[in-house]
């Protein structure tokens, strides 16, 4: 690598293709020092790894005449003048991208970066290629016509202001004040909650009356009686009826409060569950791929329940407690400030205790929740796979796994309980100590004639309730923490933005012709680049077969066309409109999908056929079933179209299920049809019947079919051969056979397979591939 400044090429003009992104400020002086006179920076890429794969910032800069680079390990710059034969390529492996610079003789340099910068690296290569072209040929390249994101240069769509790539990567953690966010769900019931709160307040006030009455009862009735005066019956009746009245009032108010709050609680719970589930359904397939069913079920089920009880009961209880404590304090201070002061002394200590335990309990409860989800996960894993478990006689292993999860649960709970169990008794102890202090101080004050016996009795009665409330307040610590932990897990779902977002300014498609265009489509799943730079146009009504080894990207392409995932690079257009600017549901209405493993929901056959069009008439359902060659076997079932299928339902063969799913696709009359290995899980005879059904389905629709058995794609207008994420060949069977390339080899391999197995025709081949779904 040359270290001397580059010799400027003969051509000097500066192109309008330079990147609009200014260099990061920290780099500006460093880079400027490297530049020669009139040299202009066109593009740059900050890399975060050095060549030995250690973290360290480096920079690659493209100027109008050369490529400058510095890695994290040395302050020296490497320089490569732009010249003919120079080639910059990128590849990635296990989360690390490599940029390599070659010329005709060998590799000149290579740089490493983590995949966060992969898109930017792609842009750099584009810029380098354009500039190289210009330097070599002297012809100015055409600048990109599309609007691009100013941050990452991803092309923006019509009506899109924010870049989908940049906004997708925004990962802000949810706020710690998660519980306050629950207000969104409590808001519709704010009046009921207010009524509940006022009722709680009134109940509390009513319960504060009786201790106050003990004071005159003691001082005006009992003490005078002990001193020889007769009991004033009228006064006693008055006080006792006052006590009874207060108790009755507290009872009625308490009932009203509990009832109202229970009603509200259930409604909040319902809303929370429905909202979470509805949000969950909108999330992309990517999300479901990464989550476990048991965990999601636990979140929607038990967590929501815990939260709604918290909002409607514990939180209000806590507020009432605080009010009650303030009210009691006021009463106590008004009776005797000194005694009140002594009485309230243990309060800060208890408050401190609550605070210290809070942290430990919260983490503990979060852990308990996660462990609980773990236990559910074991069940969710095993029960659906019970046939495999039994077939391999692994019951004891699965039992051990469950036992281990349970044991783990137990250990975590034991740890939490150690802290938690200490908490209650400590509060009780402090209550007793508090009472002791009042007794001591009160007796001393009585002996000095500062207070009457009645005052001390009233204080003791109050403080009994007072500390009971503190005790229940201490319980709020655990429920708040549990609810906060639950709320966090719920908001984890609610905050998750679908990676297949609805467009901000949707474009509606009145009538779809079915023209699909893929423009430089790239997709990455995690660190693996699954497809790269696929460009393909499918005309309306055309049938295209996707061919290739497993892992070549066929299913990914279908998932991208269905918009189960969004492309990482490039765009997919339907009738010339980017599918990301069409509302998701509206777009998918135009797509009929027949999968390798048809999924039937629990319900009747008619309901299953009408799944995509619930208002379909019986005639339509029968017509669809007829076209799918399913009508006759359905009639053979004891309850015909009303037979129950799905889990716990009528057992159907694979071919029968497939034909029901074809009828389902036929009924919605989609413009685009996708057959993902629709016939590979059935035997040859059944396949022929399904093929007849498919022929009906394909007519007049844009069809994309994936099949391992190449013979099933004979009807296709074109075959697209994929290899390791790229399109390698396109053409019909004869053309591709004549080319003797990838397709030819695939075809030969299948034919050979048939020969060795002694089969008579191609249809019997590829049986070993049948479980393959990429």
């Amino acid at each position, binding site marked *: 690598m040359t270290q001397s400044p580059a010799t400027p090429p003969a051509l000097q003009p500066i192109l309008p293709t330079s990147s609009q992104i200014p260099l990061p400020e920290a780099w500006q002086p460093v880079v400027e020092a490297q530049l020669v006179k009139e040299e202009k920076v066109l593009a740059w890429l900050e890399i*975060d*790894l050095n060549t*030995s*794969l*250690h*973290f*360290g910032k480096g920079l690659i800069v493209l100027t109008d005449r050369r490529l400058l680079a510095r890695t994290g390990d040395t302050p020296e710059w490497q320089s490569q003048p732009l010249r003919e034969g120079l080639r910059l390529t990128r590849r990635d*492996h*296990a*989360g*690390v991208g490599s940029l*390599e610079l*070659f010329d005709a*003789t*060998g*590799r000149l340099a*290579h740089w490493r970066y*983590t*995949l*966060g910068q992969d898109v930017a690296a792609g842009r750099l290569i584009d810029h380098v290629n354009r500039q190289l072209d210009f330097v070599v040929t002297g012809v100015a390249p055409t600048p990109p016509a599309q609007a691009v994101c100013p941050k990452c240069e991803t092309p923006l769509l019509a009506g899109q202001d924010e870049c989908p790539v940049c906004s997708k*990567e925004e*990962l*802000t*953690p*949810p706020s*710690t004040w*998660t519980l306050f966010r629950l207000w969104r769900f409590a808001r519709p019931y704010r009046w009921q909650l207010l009524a509940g709160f006022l009722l709680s307040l009134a109940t509390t006030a009513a319960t504060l009356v009786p201790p106050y009455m003990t004071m005159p009862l003691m001082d005006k009735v009992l003490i005078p009686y002990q001193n020889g005066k007769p009991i004033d019956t009228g006064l006693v009746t008055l006080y006792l009826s006052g006590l009874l009245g207060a108790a009755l009032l507290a009872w009625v108010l308490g009932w009203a409060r509990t009832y109202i709050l229970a009603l509200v609680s259930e409604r909040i719970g319902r809303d929370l569950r429905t909202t979470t589930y509805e949000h969950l359904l909108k999330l992309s397939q990517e999300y479901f791929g*990464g*989550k*476990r069913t048991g*965990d999601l079920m636990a979140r929607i089920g038990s967590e929501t329940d815990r939260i709604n009880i918290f909002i409607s009961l514990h939180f209000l209880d806590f507020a009432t407690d605080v009010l009650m404590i303030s009210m009691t304090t006021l009463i106590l201070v008004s009776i005797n400030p000194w005694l009140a002061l002594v009485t309230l002394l243990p309060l800060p200590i208890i408050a401190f205790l609550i605070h210290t335990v809070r942290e430990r309990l919260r*983490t503990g409860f*979060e*852990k308990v929740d*996660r462990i609980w989800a773990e236990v559910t996960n074991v069940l969710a894993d095993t029960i659906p796979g019970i046939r495999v478990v039994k077939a391999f006689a692994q019951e004891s292993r699965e039992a051990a796994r469950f036992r281990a999860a349970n044991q783990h649960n137990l250990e975590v709970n034991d740890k939490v309980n150690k802290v938690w169990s200490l908490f209650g008794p400590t509060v009780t102890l402090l209550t007793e100590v508090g009472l002791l202090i009042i007794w001591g101080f009160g007796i001393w004050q009585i002996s000095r004639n500062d207070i009457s016996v009645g005052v001390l009795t009233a204080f003791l009665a109050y403080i009994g309730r007072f500390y009971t409330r503190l005790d229940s307040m201490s319980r709020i610590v655990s429920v708040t923490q549990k609810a906060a932990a639950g709320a*966090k897990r719920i908001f*984890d779902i609610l905050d998750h933005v679908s990676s297949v977002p609805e467009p901000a300014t949707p474009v509606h498609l009145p009538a779809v012709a079915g023209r699909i265009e893929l423009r430089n489509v790239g997709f990455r799943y*995690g*660190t*693996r680049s699954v497809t790269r730079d696929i460009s393909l146009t499918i005309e309306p009504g055309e049938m295209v077969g996707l061919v290739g080894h497993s892992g070549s990207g066929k299913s990914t392409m279908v998932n991208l066309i269905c918009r189960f995932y969004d492309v990482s690079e490039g765009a997919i257009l339907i009738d010339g409109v980017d599918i990301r600017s069409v509302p998701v549901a509206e777009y998918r209405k135009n797509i009929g999908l027949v999968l390798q493993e048809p999924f039937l929901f629990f319900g009747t056959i008619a309901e299953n056929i009408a799944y995509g069009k619930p208002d379909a008439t019986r005639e339509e359902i029968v017509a669809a079933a007829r076209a799918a060659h399913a009508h006759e076997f359905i009639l053979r079932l004891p309850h015909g179209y009303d037979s129950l299928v799905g889990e716990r339902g009528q057992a159907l063969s694979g071919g029968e299920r497939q034909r029901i799913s074809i009828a389902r696709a036929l009924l919605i009359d989609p413009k685009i049809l996708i057959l993902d290995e629709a016939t590979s899980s059935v035997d040859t005879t059944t396949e022929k019947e399904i093929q007849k059904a498919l022929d009906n389905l394909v007519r007049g629709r844009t069809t994309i079919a994936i099949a391992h058995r190449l013979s099933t794609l004979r009807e296709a207008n074109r075959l697209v051969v994929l290899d*390791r994420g790229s399109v390698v060949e396109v053409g019909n069977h004869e053309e591709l056979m004549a080319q003797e390339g990838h397709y030819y080899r695939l075809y030969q391999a299948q034919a050979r397979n048939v020969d060795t197995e002694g089969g008579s025709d191609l249809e019997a081949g590829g049986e070993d591939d049948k479980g393959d779904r990429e």
Partner: protein
Amino acid sequence: MSTTHDFQLHRDAFGKLIFTGSDGEAHEALPVRAFPIGAPDKGIALVDPHGHELAWIDALADLDAERRQLVESELASREFMPVIERIIEVSSYATPSTWTIVTNRGETKLILKGEEDIRRLAAQALLIADSNGIQYLIRDRGALDAHSRKILDRFL
């Protein structure tokens, strides 16, 4: 598979590892570990760019020094699994959370998308996948310092 390893390896001017088998045919080769986490030094395959296996090496130690060095250097240039030595801080205990960490490859930040991206390996080892899919390894969480352990504990 044979353990004699009658193939030749060399690196060409383009930085590629070239495999020449007993039949004299030369292929571009990539070494791949079969058990990168469980048994990194056992079972290494040499595959061609199409993913077809060219040779199988039971253990790296079976190779002579020269070829072993070539394979090891090629592996080292491709493998990237930083080992977390210390967790300095995390932006929040709720995910997604940004962790500032010290690894054997220097200090960096990772974004943890969810707790489920922390995979428990055997015993005390953990594998953490960040939002870009880079895998970070914690060999023994018991051996981390108290501060890191405390942070990590909140996510387990």
